[in-house]
């Protein structure tokens, strides 16, 4: 059976191109993609994950507010009963060109399993998903 993945762009972020490309790439790679699109709230991600019984949530944030928008997502997942669901985040997560390590750390402390710097190609994501989901 295909693994289900919730995909979306969080917050007030309207960047749609990467989202469409990721959808295409993940689908090609054999996942069942539940794409909630841009401008999605934490609740939208969680509801989609519950409804579809997804194995992972992939959060994109391009526009710079990712840090504010992603806070508390892990906790809300737990509350909603999504125990140990995989959480990935990528895009242009913070405002400006910042050293990557501290950014990665901040997001991991927020509870993301994997965090990706700007311009990470979908292949990397797919490889890690396969690894983490043991496919």
């Amino acid at each position: 059976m295909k693994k289900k993945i919730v995909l979306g762009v969080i917050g007030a972020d309207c960047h749609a191109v990467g989202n469409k490309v990721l959808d295409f790439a993940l689908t090609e790679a054999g996942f069942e993609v539940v794409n909630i699109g841009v401008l999605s709230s934490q609740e939208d991600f969680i509801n989609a994950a519950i409804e579809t019984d997804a194995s992972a949530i992939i959060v994109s944030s391009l526009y710079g507010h990712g840090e504010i928008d992603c806070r508390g997502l892990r906790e809300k997942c737990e509350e909603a009963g999504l125990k140990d669901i995989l959480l990935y985040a990528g895009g242009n997560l913070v405002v400006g060109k910042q050293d990557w390590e501290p950014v990665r750390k901040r997001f991991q402390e927020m509870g993301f399993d994997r965090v990706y710097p700007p311009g990470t190609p979908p292949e990397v994501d797919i490889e890690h998903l396969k690894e983490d989901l043991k496919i």
Partner: protein
Amino acid sequence: MELKNKKWTEEEFLKMRKEVLTQWPTGKDVDFKEATDYIKALPEHKNFAKKLRKASQEGITLAQPRAGVALVDEHIKLLSYLEKEGGADLLPNTIDSYTRQNRYHECEVGIKESVKENRSMLNGFPAVNHGVKNCRRVVESVNLPLQARHGTPDSRLLSEIIHAGGWTSNEGGGISYNIPYAKSVSLEKTILDWQYCDRLAGMYEEMGVEINREPFGPLTGTLVPPSISNVVAIVEGLLAAEQGVKNITLGYGQCGNLVQDVAAIRALVEQAGEYFKFYGYNIELTTVFHQWMGGFPADESKAFGVISWGAATAALAGATKVIVKTPHEAVGIPTMEANAQGIKATKQTLNLLKGQRLPMSKELEAEIQLIKAETKCILDKVFEIGKGDLSVGAVKAFQTGIMDIPFAPSNYNAGKILPARDNNGAVRFLEFGNIPMSQEIKDFNRQLLEERANLEGRKVGFQMVVDDIYAVGKGTLVGRPEHK
């Protein structure tokens, strides 16, 4: 209110205004009469429309960056630096994304966090939260005209505040600040809301205050065929004109093929001019060329190559101004220094090219004709379907996919068309969706893409589109297959 392409009555406007100015506490500081006096008292060189007029007469291209941070003092520092060190000709105030969604409470959080963290936690300047007085502080602290640049579907309050704040230009439009920027806001609503913004600009004009309006040309910034963006520009230009706007800058985002880009700007000026004239509007028309708006290379030297080529094309096209990217584009909001670097590379290029234009040629002529013909196919249908009312026509056109913007997030966009580059890098239609083009045009677009497919030894298809999306970021214009 029913959507119609008709100048709002004073009554309609004032009724709406009451509501608008209470959307956030800072709205109460807007006093229209006092604001017109304020703007009139500003020195001429801080008026956007006047500066554009001068540039247009001199045949030069002005450079304008994008820039905005959360806090007022920091923002002033940023703009002053771009003026002095960067040599910008026009200044922007890029508005943050929460303001764009009218989430002023979240802006407050962002402002507080920015103070606390001592770095901007917002991706722009939250003008509504800062209010009229602070907008004026900005205009008084710099020596150049100011514009609000955003992406706000409902920008009524924002527009009131920025104009009262002495910013004499406003970017946006009912289509261009909806379809690429929103998911579930109806087009009917955004066109109405932007009629308000246009009417506001028109009222300033009637009081003798020149206000420039600029529909957002590049849309999703990603492989938008010129005819698609020219249609939107002309529609928004006409809608603005009806509300009394007099000074309009129509825009276009670089595609990358020189002949196509120059043709797009020339077709836009000529065709928009014809429409304005036909419908009896007396408009002062200028143009803005956006340096490549899609994915950038992360390497800064490569980014400089992209930036400079955009500047060169803008000059050769004779655009009135060019919107400048920065060497940080692929990674994040630029530092003040990186932003100035982008302007400096741009200005150097513009200056080298001052007065130079792409001469007319068979190829340029043909491309202008093609873009105009494509544009006309769509516009004819929009007028037809709206039964003569352009605003209604636009709404219906998006419903039916007669107008359709590639890669747009909006649910109100059909999303059926697909663009791809031909062998010379010009952007063509791979899928037309419901775009009503003549068979001849369809065949021509197809033929060009088939030629590319042949050269690349593969089929015309979505992989080509994906490759083209990545191409500039990876250092080329056309996304060729890796092993060939």
